[in-house]
């Protein structure tokens, strides 16, 4: 499916009932195995929204924002958010367990190897390249969600301001949100009242 095609009128939430706990665990296990270099949330959008249709784009993006604002790793937060939305607490445990099983096993194995051998496992070169590509995946995901979520100038300016102040100038998150979120809220409410949403 090309990127420009919207997922279409997928029924609210998902087609044909919530996925089983096993399906949730398996899906997140795959994401956990692929989540190199910090591209985890981009993988999740691809797997959960575009491929499986478990969530619609709009609730997913709201969840993504909440997970980026809340403390803790974004990917773990998003697993908890999605799992809870699909199947409550057991869904959250299945999603988080699947997501974290591969990283935990790999990090512990590599750490034990390091403590024994005293040097890093010799795959560092390959992995820096994978990490660099994962940053590209993150940016590509940003472009794709921007295309869907941003349709006028002011929200675009808000997003740009957040990216620059936090990503480049390392401004603290809370003040940046206190400035941008109220503006975004007012715009969203006005758009809704005018029936554009």
């Amino acid at each position, binding site marked *: 499916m090309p990127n420009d095609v919207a997922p279409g009128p997928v029924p609210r939430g998902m087609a044909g009932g919530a996925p089983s706990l096993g399906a949730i665990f398996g899906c997140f296990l795959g994401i956990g195995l692929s989540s190199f270099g910090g591209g985890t*949330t981009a993988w999740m959008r691809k797997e959960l929204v575009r491929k499986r249709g478990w969530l619609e784009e709009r609730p997913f993006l709201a969840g993504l924002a909440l997970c980026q604002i809340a403390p803790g790793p974004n990917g773990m937060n998003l697993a908890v958010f999605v799992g809870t939305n699909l199947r409550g607490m057991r869904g959250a445990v299945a999603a988080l367990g699947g997501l974290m099983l591969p990283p935990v096993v790999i990090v512990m194995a590599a750490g034990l190897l390091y403590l024994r051998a005293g040097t890093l496992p010799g795959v560092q070169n390959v992995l820096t*390249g994978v990490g660099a590509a994962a940053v590209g995946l993150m940016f590509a995901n940003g472009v794709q969600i921007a295309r869907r979520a941003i349709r006028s100038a002011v929200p675009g300016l808000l997003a740009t301001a957040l990216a620059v102040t936090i990503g480049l100038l390392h401004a603290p998150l809370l003040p940046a949100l206190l400035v941008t979120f109220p503006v975004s809220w007012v715009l969203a409410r006005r758009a809704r009242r005018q029936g554009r949403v």
Partner: protein
Amino acid sequence: MNVLLQLALLFGGLSLIAFGGGSGILPAVQHEAVDVQHWLTGREFIDFFAIARAAPGPGSTVVMLVGLKAAGALGAVVAAVTLFGPSSLLMFAAAKGWRTLEGAAWRRTAEAALAPIAVGLTFATGLSLLQGTEHGWVLYGITAVSMVVLTVTDWHPGIVLAAGGVVSLLL
């Protein structure tokens, strides 16, 4: 004081202030673990962080290795549970609350208002990741090409990540 208890206090105290993806607390972890408690050397911490970053999953999994060095396998478990537990429970409560607002008009407004925030913070994360690693021109090139390819095609990201690894190995 018992080392497991010290680990629990350290990471439990940091869990709910780990804003911005969670890696913001790592300098504090490094200071406490290396300079104050002497659980590991500075060199070991840096190497552990390299391992955690190279592996899939969040870079914060480095705390498991800090726990491992400080108190063995149980230390790793205590570190992971106390750092990731509280923030995950908070997110669970938030998701539950969010779910009960299904259909409410202001939830739809909030969703629309949060979308540009998600976009901005996604780019901010990418920019921080760029600065967090020593990025030579080859790595910048890999990042740029991957971004373009994954934006304009529908290729599987795994292919692009693997290609990034191969290019970096060869150049």
